Each structure stands twice: as C-alpha cells, then as structure tokens.
C-alpha cells in the first residue's frame, strides 16, 4: 500500500506549490503537482489602454519581473506593427540577459543549492584543505585559508547561537547529501558571495528601467533617453555603471558559479533521477526576427519529442493547433466542448471542486490545481534552460553544442545524463555563461550604435491611438529564465479586449491531462527513491531543478467570468 506524503509549502521557490506523492517500497510511485493560489487579474485588463498592459502583467511575477513586461510590449508592438529603434532593442536585450544571469545565479545558490550543499557539514571542513580545493578549481581571488576560516567562524557563531533562522529544521545530515565538508564550505561561502553580488548586477535594470524589481518599459521603445551630453539622461557615467556590473558578472559566472557547478556535479553524477516527460519546447529568444526557429539564433526555438535529438519541429505560437490548454484536472471548466483551447480561443471559468480549507489532502482523481494543463500538439512539454539547450543542440547551434559537449566531456558523462534533475541544473549554468557573454556583446553594440550617432530610443509614430487600426491582434513570445513564455493580445477601438499568457511554470507544474499523461514535475518525481519519506529532500531537489514560479503559472480568470466567456486573461 502506497503512503501518501504531502509537501506544502514547497519552499525556496516563488509562490505556493503543493506536492502530493505516493511512496511505496522507498520509491515515489505517483505524484501530483498543485498550484494553490489564484489572483484573478481578469477584468482589470479589459478596456485598458494597451500601452499600460505591461505594468499590470509585469506584476504576474516579481521574480520574472522583467520578461513578462517584455512579452507584453512585444505583443502590443506586434499587433500595432510598431518598429522599435535599434537602441531600444539592444537595451531590452541587455536587460533580458541581465535577468537571466542574476536569476540563474540566485536559483543555483539560494533556491536550489541547499538541496546539494549541507550547511552544517561545512562546520567540519578544514579551511586549509578547502582553500586548496578552491584554488584548484578557480582563479577567484577570495580563496585563502583566512577567508574560509572567517566564513566557517561566521557559520559556527550562527549555529552556536541556537537560532538557525532560514537554516532551521532542515535536512542536514540526510544521506542524499554527498559533498565532502570542504566542498560544502565552498558552497556556503559562495551562497553568501552570491547574495551580495546579485544586488549589484541588477543595477543594470535600475539604470535603464529606474528600479528593480519591476523596472519600467515603454511600448515603441524605452523611456531612458540617451543624451551623452546631459546630466539627467543616459550619459557616460550611467553607461559606465552598466559596463562595470557586466565585468563583475562575467567574473562571477566564470570564477564562481561555473567552477562550483562542475565541482558539485562531479559528486552527484550517480544521482540520475528526475528525467520527466521526455519532450522539450522552446520559443527561442534574443533573435530580432519574429519567428525564431533558426539554428543561428542565439537561443533557437523548436520542439523535441521523446528525447530524439535528431529531429526538431518548428514551433508557431500563432497556429491554433499547436499550443493548447486543457482543464480536466484544473479548477476551471470550459463551456460546451471539452478538449484543448488555443490561447486565442481560451476560456478561464472558475469551477472550484477542491476541499474547503483547512484540508489534509486533495482529491487527485478530480480537479486538483489552479494551474492549467498546456500541451503542444497534445504532448506535455518541459520548458526551461534544459529545453533551450537541447533544442539549440539538436538544431546544431555551434555555441550551444560546443558548450554542452564540453561540459559532458569534463564530467565524463554521456548525453543521457542531460535528461535528469542534474542535467537541468547543468544546462542552466551553461546557459548563464552564454548569456553573460551575450550581455557584454549587446552592451558593446549599444555603445557602437550611440557612437555612430544614433541616440533614438523611442518610435513615436504610433503612440497616438488615432493611428491604430480598429482591431488588431498580436503575440509576444520569448524565453523567461524558466522557459517558453507567450503573451497574446487583441485590441479593439484602442482598448485591450483580450489578453492571455501561457507561461513557463504552467507548462512544467501542470496537472495531468485527461488521458492521465503526467505534467513535467509529476513525471520527473516518479521513480525517485526516498531515504526517508518524512524528509522530502529528494522531492525538493527534483522540483527545484525546474526553478518553479507559481504566481506565473496560476491562471487569471475570464474578463466577465460568469456572464461573457469570450474574453479571457489567464496565466
């Protein structure tokens, strides 16, 4: 008889996620993923000025704070056929790359790291031996015996205080931890370093967008005027700050993040669990053209089925038969027919059939989540860094292929190793390296463009709604750090009359479909051994490898909910 265990809240992620898993014979035999928050941002969007939309949908998520706004302004610009000046494109790309780098580093150390790094074990480390290891894997200057002695002293003082704060009551000493104390100490030291560094790189957003989280954007360009001969605009001092943070970011990724990733991965090569649904989807990003299915794109789009890297399918978010959402196990219903709906035809009508809180267990035979079930051509798809790297690899993108082959070679692993929690975590790191290089490249391009005499950041031609057609529709599709992101908008008489988004965590955290096909989280958990079902370290490790973002995933509700089901806004 399987034992049902519940992990709620799953911590170290954004939002409210609940996992119910059945454990039998020390192994997970079935799993259910449930998003337990719903915000219902529906009617709010209806009738709004499309130029304002980004500010609302940006608040879907404060972690993905930049990319929802980008998808939104791109959808509106697509609908209204607005051409964006080159400087604004470059600034947006700099901000996107910045977000990826910052977000991935935070994820590695602060959200995911403690699944692999045992903080208390670091107290047993020999600082001398730690320094030897640190110096052997990286040229990072903070690697002296004194440095590690100080860090260890800090942790000791903290532990001896008897108040473990964020480290309290965790899984220290769990048999799934494999790192020697010295590597744990390096991990803890860099947890602290990363905490300090992440607040600095984000200043790049502050320069261009005025603040972070939730910087500001503009349909038709950017609001940060460039005039290098003025004190109140983007001038050399402002740009120099960006350049300095980029240099620091490159150093941090190359000297801290990647060496740590490889060092830690080398101790977990045998932990091959967490594979999941075998299908991968990417829309692609950092390509100027609107369709992104080319190998030469920085991150190409495409779909891979059944782990077959010899065939990549083109993805078209406008095709009504490709991306669809189902609600068989979600707390919604469709009017009339069952089955999938493309976002353009979408509907989000609440039908809560779960237990009244407080409750112990969900009825997983029925509906059990606020997250819908998206499918690409009826298949469950994993999205995120692993999907992007696999799609790029399969498309023959030279930079991505080189990076993956090199990493597998260094770790002595075959391609199959990628299809796991570890593979996901590795792909995220490799992607960060490509992103930080791209960040530098975009900055150099921006400066070259300004030097050539172009200071335009905004195209005013279609700012005035009187220049817009009576009706228009557009799609903004890109990649968030957590995976493929699409926003769909319809505009009528200068107002939003339909707005929808299908976001990364909706793909990954989805409940099963009508045919019983599991979502990526659920599928990845099945088959994983648990040393102690009361201590869900293995579950956390697998779920965190996806980097969940639940506020993004829970759908917004229809514009007129129970009266008019035509206009939906859902996430």
């Amino acid at each position, binding site marked *: 008889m399987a034992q049902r265990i519940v992990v709620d*809240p799953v911590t170290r992620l954004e939002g409210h996620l609940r996992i119910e898993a059945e454990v039998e014979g020390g192994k997970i035999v079935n799993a259910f993923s449930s998003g*337990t928050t719903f915000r219902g941002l529906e009617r709010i969007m209806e009738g*709004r000025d499309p130029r304002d939309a980004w500010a609302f949908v940006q608040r879907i998520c*404060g972690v993905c704070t930049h990319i929802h706004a980008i998808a939104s302004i791109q959808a509106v610009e697509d609908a209204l056929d607005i051409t964006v000046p080159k400087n604004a494109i470059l600034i947006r790309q700099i901000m996107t790359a910045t977000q990826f780098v910052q977000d991935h580093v935070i994820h590695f150390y602060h959200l995911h790291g403690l699944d692999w790094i045992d903080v208390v074990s670091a107290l047993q480390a020999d600082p001398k031996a730690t320094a030897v290891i640190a110096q052997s894997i990286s040229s990072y200057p903070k690697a002296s015996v004194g440095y590690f002695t100080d860090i260890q002293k800090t942790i000791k003082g903290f532990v001896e205080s008897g108040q*473990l704060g964020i480290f309290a009551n965790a*899984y220290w000493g769990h048999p799934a931890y494999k790192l020697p104390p010295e590597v744990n100490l390096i991990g803890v030291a860099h947890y602290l370093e990363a905490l300090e560094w992440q607040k600095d790189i984000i200043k790049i957003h502050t320069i261009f967008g005025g603040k972070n989280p939730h910087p500001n954007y503009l349909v038709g360009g950017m609001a940060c005027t460039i005039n290098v001969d003025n004190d109140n605009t983007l001038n050399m001092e402002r740009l120099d700050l960006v350049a300095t943070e980029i240099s620091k970011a490159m150093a941090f990724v190359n000297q801290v993040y990647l060496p740590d990733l490889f060092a830690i991965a080398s101790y977990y090569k045998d932990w091959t669990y967490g594979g999941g649904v075998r299908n991968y989807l990417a829309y692609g990003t950092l390509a100027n053209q609107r369709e992104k299915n080319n190998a030469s794109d920085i991150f190409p789009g495409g779909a891979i089925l059944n782990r077959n890297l010899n065939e990549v399918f083109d993805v078209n978010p406008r095709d009504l038969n490709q991306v669809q959402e189902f609600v068989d196990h979600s707390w919604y219903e469709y009017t009339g027919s069952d089955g999938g709906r493309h976002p353009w035809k979408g509907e989000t009508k609440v039908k809560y059939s779960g237990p009244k809180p407080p409750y112990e267990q969900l009825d997983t035979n029925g509906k059990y989540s606020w997250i819908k079930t998206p499918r690409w051509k009826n298949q469950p798809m994993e999205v995120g860094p692993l999907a992007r790297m696999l799609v790029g690899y399969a498309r023959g993108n030279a930079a991505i292929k080189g990076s993956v082959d090199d990493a597998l070679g260094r770790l002595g692993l075959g391609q199959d190793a990628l299809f796991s929690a570890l593979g996901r975590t590795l792909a995220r790191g490799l992607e960060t390296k490509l992103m930080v290089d791209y960040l530098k490249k975009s900055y150099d391009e921006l400066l070259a463009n300004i030097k050539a005499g172009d200071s335009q950041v905004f195209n005013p031609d279609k700012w005035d709604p009187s220049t817009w057609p009576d009706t228009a529709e557009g799609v903004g599709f890109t990649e968030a750090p957590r995976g493929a992101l699409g926003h769909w908008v319809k505009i009528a008489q200068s107002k939003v009359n339909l707005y929808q988004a299908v976001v990364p965590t909706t793909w990954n955290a989805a409940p099963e479909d009508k045919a019983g096909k599991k979502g990526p989280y659920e599928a990845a958990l099945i088959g994983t051994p648990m040393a102690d079902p009361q201590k869900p370290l293995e579950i956390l490790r697998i779920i965190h490898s996806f980097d969940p973002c639940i506020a993004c995933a829970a759908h917004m509700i229809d514009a007129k909910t129970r009266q008019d089901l035509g206009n939906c806004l859902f996430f």
Partner: protein
Amino acid sequence: MKDSFYAAMRKRGYSRREFLRMCAILTAAMGLEASFIPKVAYALENKPRMPVIYLHLQECTCCAESFIRTAHPLLSDLLFNMISLDYMETLQAAAGLQAEEAKQKTMRESKGHYLLVVEGSIPLKDDGIYCTIGGRSAKDVLLEAAKDSVAVIAFGSCATNTCVQGAHPNPTGAVPVKEVVTTKPVIDVPGCPPIAEVIAGVIVHYLTFDRLPELTRLGRPKAFYNHRIHDNCNRRAFFDAGMFVEEFDDEGAKHGWCLYKVGCKGPTTYNACAITQWNNGVSYPIKSGHPCIGCSEPGFYDNFPMYDHLAHVPASAMPFDPDHFGKAITGLTVAGVAVHGVATGVIMRDRDKPDHPDKREGGRE
C-alpha cells in the same frame, strides 16, 4: 527588553539543570560535538536575535526580491547578526512539515516577542480557496501568526492596498493586512515593491530603538513616506519652470525635463524613491526617464491610463497652467531658458509668502 531564551525558560519553571540538558540535546541535534554545549548555552542565556516570521500570501514575491537586494544593511548581516528569520518560504531550507514546525516553534517559544512580516493580500471570497498554504486559508495562517506577534509589518502594495489583484473588480475578494489583523499594530510599507533599504530599514528601526517607527496618518513610517516624490524630484525645477517632456524621446526628454505631461504620478505619490533611490541609490523611475506610476498609493491601477497626466496637482508651486505653458516653451528652447529664469525667480519669491502652498498643511500628507 526581550527575554533571552534562558530567561524565558526559567520563567516557565525549568531549572538550570534542565536548561543545560536542553542545550546538550540542541547541540547534538545541530550535528555539533559536545564541546559546543557551553557556547550554545551562552548564546541562549544572552539576548537573542529578534525572531521574524515572513509570510507570503497572495502576491508576486517582488517584495521578497527587493528585500534580498538590501545594501545597507547587507542581507547577510541582517540574517546572521540582527534577526532570526525563522520562516520565509522563499529562502528557508526546510519545506512542508519541517517549515511549518519551525514557524510553530517560534510562535510558541517567542510568544509576544517576534515580528511578523507579511507580503501579499488576503483573498476572503469563497472561504479563502484562492490562496492556501499547507491546506489552510491565507486568512487562517495570517491570524494565527499575528496573534502572538509584537507587531505586523505589511510589506508592499499587495499587503497594504491589495495592488493589482485588488484592482476593480477584485475577483478574489482580496483585502489588505490591516483589514484582517485588528488586534496588533500594523505598519504599512507600501510600494510595488518597496525600496530594499526601506524594507530593511523598518525592521532595523524596531531592533535598534526597541519601538515602532512614527507613522503618517495613513499608517506608514514617516521616515520614508512623509513626502511626495514630487517634493524631492531631480526634475522638479523643470516642473516649476514649466519645461516639460511632451512626448517620449523628444527635445525636452533629451534635456531631462519634467515628465508630468507624459503621466507622472510623482505629485500624488508619497514614497522615498527620489531621496533613497533604488538598488543602493542608483536611480529611480523618473531619473531614468519614465514617469512615476504611483505604485505606493491605494488604487493606483484604477488611476490609469498611465500616460495621461493628472488633472490637478495638489499643493503646486507653479503659478500657471502646464498644459498651455509647457507647449509654448518646448517649441522654443532659447525662450524656454529665459522663461525658466523668470519663472524660478517668481516661485522663489512666492515661496517666502506665509500662505504659499508649500508652507500649508495641504503640502504634506
């Protein structure tokens, strides 16, 4: 003065011998050798770090993201030397039952001594089904944690004014913290999100001075929410002089003029953005060329369109109608500079009069 852990135990009738036995158990539970027992005992006999419980309710986590960006104090300083962040889903290592246990332990053992920080609104509609944690409604979780807290800090616009999910028609029945918690002081720290150093500053204020900060009449700390962004704006001189950006990236924008006419809500928004600035003082929206969207004010989403300017500027120092005045000078920069000089002179002279708006009560919140 808060009790140390040891003092609290003695009050509850435990002997010193029992206390030391507990220290030994605790030391072993933390995976430490017996030689650490005296150190653990010493720590528990002395002033503990302030326990803090941080709840995430119906929100987007932007406040937590802002919180971790604090530069002074550094987050590591705050976490390791000032507070004991015993529950915060975004950062804590434990999950599920173990996370809940950690929270229960703090509520039990630091009864009346812990700070409660809340990010997010509380959806009251339909028995609270729109936000559950551990199978319990957000309201339930909040009321339980607030009951024995020393005070509640409502971080961000969700917790103070329900932000985007509370905009018309508020489909989940979201309410701010102060509508649910009525038996404890609730300090509102609005903004979407609030500035990192403001978030940390409110906590450290309490730790340092052992008292809650003084509040404005809207219940916000005066140290950060006493003035309008307009009052300290780096583009204020251009507002006073009637020199406006008429369209993004225009000549006025290239000169860094006032953003009032492209929708700036700075004149009606009380926040520290123009003084403290964001991300360790780097910039704030207006400085980076985008109008303030008014994210710390109740109902700001229902005050859009974002790029339409305010109908009325309260307590304006400007003696003329910007709609007519600004256009005249942006077309003619040279004349604008001359007018600027004159207008500034007029304003400076007017400011000395006792009935000038800046001197009246209406000039403040």
